């Protein structure tokens, strides 16, 4: 085929052995450059924290990151708070509890949202880096176990849930449902809910077949479309503003064990009194006792008005016991 000589021709070739010398020189320069950038990065941790308390006339910034379960709620709280305090700017982002706690340890943020308590390893690491984590409970969640609306199952025990998520129960027929392979939805390891559910329910490793979704709404969307799906999400994501379960979903009743009655997380008393086995507090962590604008914001969250927003977002207000503990942590007397 003489005629099909390539028209793009020879300009692509790298001719000669001078190339090799060039590569070697390049590596050297690269190394030098790299050591410079690395040295630059080392100092980054310092001086970034505490922007919130250093405002003079200009807007004070509170940086909040973490739990994907909390992100919408805290954003709503921040909006209301900013209406009252036009001099304070609250920036809320998600990424998962682990991400928020890591950022608090790295002094990148002022408040970490978390849907789980801090692990002892994290507290140790924080203290090594000179961060003194202080936590308050800002809302309660009844972690909702959701399935597709069409699934004829209404309740499960915690033990069954554990076996389902460990991959030991593979078919809905094993728990009295139709003959369908269970399709597991969970979160990824950055999620506090992932850790909470693993330690509280799974008590082992998640089945590798579990799909790792990147947020509560990602799970909600998937389970709405999956007739054999099951997932866990913060209660605020399973219900709408009026407290009704989202169309296409069903929130299961969960029993502590085979002898106990199955309880729904949709009733506030069940969660407040801890009757619902997956009732859990939602936290915020700060570096040291919060002061200034940060304290102001947390006090707003815990106020009657803040807790009303909590309810409106589908979560539950904290109990007087939590309030007492919070006040002690914050050093508030009333």
């Amino acid at each position, binding site marked *: 085929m003489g*005629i099909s000589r390539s028209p793009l021709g020879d300009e692509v070739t790298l001719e000669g052995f001078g190339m090799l010398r060039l590569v070697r020189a390049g590596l050297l320069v690269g190394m030098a450059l790299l050591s410079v950038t690395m040295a630059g990065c080392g100092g980054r941790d310092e001086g970034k924290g505490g922007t919130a308390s250093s405002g003079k006339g200009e807007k004070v910034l509170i940086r909040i990151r973490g739990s994907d379960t909390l992100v919408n709620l805290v954003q709503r709280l921040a909006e209301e708070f900013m209406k009252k305090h036009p001099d304070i700017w609250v920036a809320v982002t998600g990424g998962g509890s682990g991400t928020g706690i890591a950022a608090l340890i790295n002094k990148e943020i002022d408040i970490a949202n978390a849907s789980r308590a801090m692990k002892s390893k994290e507290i140790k690491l924080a203290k090594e880096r000179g961060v003194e984590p202080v936590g308050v409970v800002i809302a309660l969640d009844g972690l909702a176990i959701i399935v597709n609306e069409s699934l004829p199952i209404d309740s499960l025990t915690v033990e069954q849930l554990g076996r389902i998520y460990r991959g030991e129960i593979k078919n809905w027929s094993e728990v009295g449902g139709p003959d369908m392979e269970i399709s597991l939805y969970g979160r990824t390891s950055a999620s506090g809910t992932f850790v909470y559910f693993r330690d509280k329910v799974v008590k082992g490793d998640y089945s590798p077949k579990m799909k790792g979704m990147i947020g509560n709404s990602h799970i909600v969307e998937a389970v709405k479309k999956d007739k054999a799906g099951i997932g866990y999400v913060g209660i605020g994501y399973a219900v709408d503003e009026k407290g009704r379960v989202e169309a296409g979903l069903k929130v299961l009743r969960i029993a502590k064990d085979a002898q106990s009655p199955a309880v729904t997380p949709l009733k506030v008393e069940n969660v407040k009194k801890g009757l619902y086995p997956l009732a859990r507090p939602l936290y915020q962590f700060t570096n040291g006792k919060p002061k200034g604008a940060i304290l102001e914001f947390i006090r707003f969250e815990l106020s009657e008005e803040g807790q009303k927003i909590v309810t409106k977002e589908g979560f539950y207000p904290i109990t007087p016991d939590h309030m007492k503990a919070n006040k002690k942590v914050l050093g508030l007397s009333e």
Partner: protein
Amino acid sequence: MSRLKEKAIHFLFFLAAFSTLVILAGIFLMLVLNAIRAFEDVSFRDFFFGTRWNPSAYGEPSYGIVQMIVSTFMTTLGAMLIAVPLGVGAAAYIAEVASPRVREVLKPAIEILAGIPSVVIGFLGIVLVGPLIADAFGLSSGLNALNGSILLAVMALPTIISVSEDAIRAVPTEYKEASYALGASRWTTLVRVTIPAAFQGIAASVVLGVGRAVGETMTVLMATGNATAMPHGFLDSVRTLTATIAIELGEVPHGTAHYYALFAVGAVLFVISLGVNLVAEMITAKHRRLTK
């Protein structure tokens, strides 16, 4: 004076070209230096031959990457199986067949396709492609390798089309004229003369497409389900190398085995794309030899 100027300009351009090498070397070094430290805690064997990735295990963490490599290869291969025939076909159509007016519409449309953010495509994977796949194959969920492949194909298409089109257009008219003179039809000329003559450029476009598919993160993260189990087919959920890094790097405390293991995953990704480029270079070099 003008000689000096010439030299200065020559040097400036040399510097511009050279900086690429420097950046490449810098990235490679940073990856390798961090990745090596992973093997203080994880054995080489467990990392490269293990099939379970579970750094946040209830008990002992494990760091095997075989299933992630398989996942990345599957989604990429699937994407190319869809995108290459479509892309080359589209390129041939635009370059050789389409009327100027049609071309005027198609080219910007393809550029717009390239501009769609990957999150948006990932979202379409969840709400549109996923349910379609689930229906078509009678599955309960469509978040799987096939979904990822389809989306990646869509994302690689603009690159493949535009680079292939340039290559096809660059084929000298003499080739085609010679072909017509020998009595070949338009179709024969296109398939037997023009496209083979543009082979190098088309191969380059495919390599660029593969690079896009291997490195794409957000889309696969959203559409493939991210299950860490070893996939057994295109209808299984997969978790690619990129998705793993994206999911876990945000929460990992610096300086832990998990942190360095993620760098090792990044290094593997780097080596894969290097390999892809080498293979491409070899193909084009061989082709050049054969056709000279």
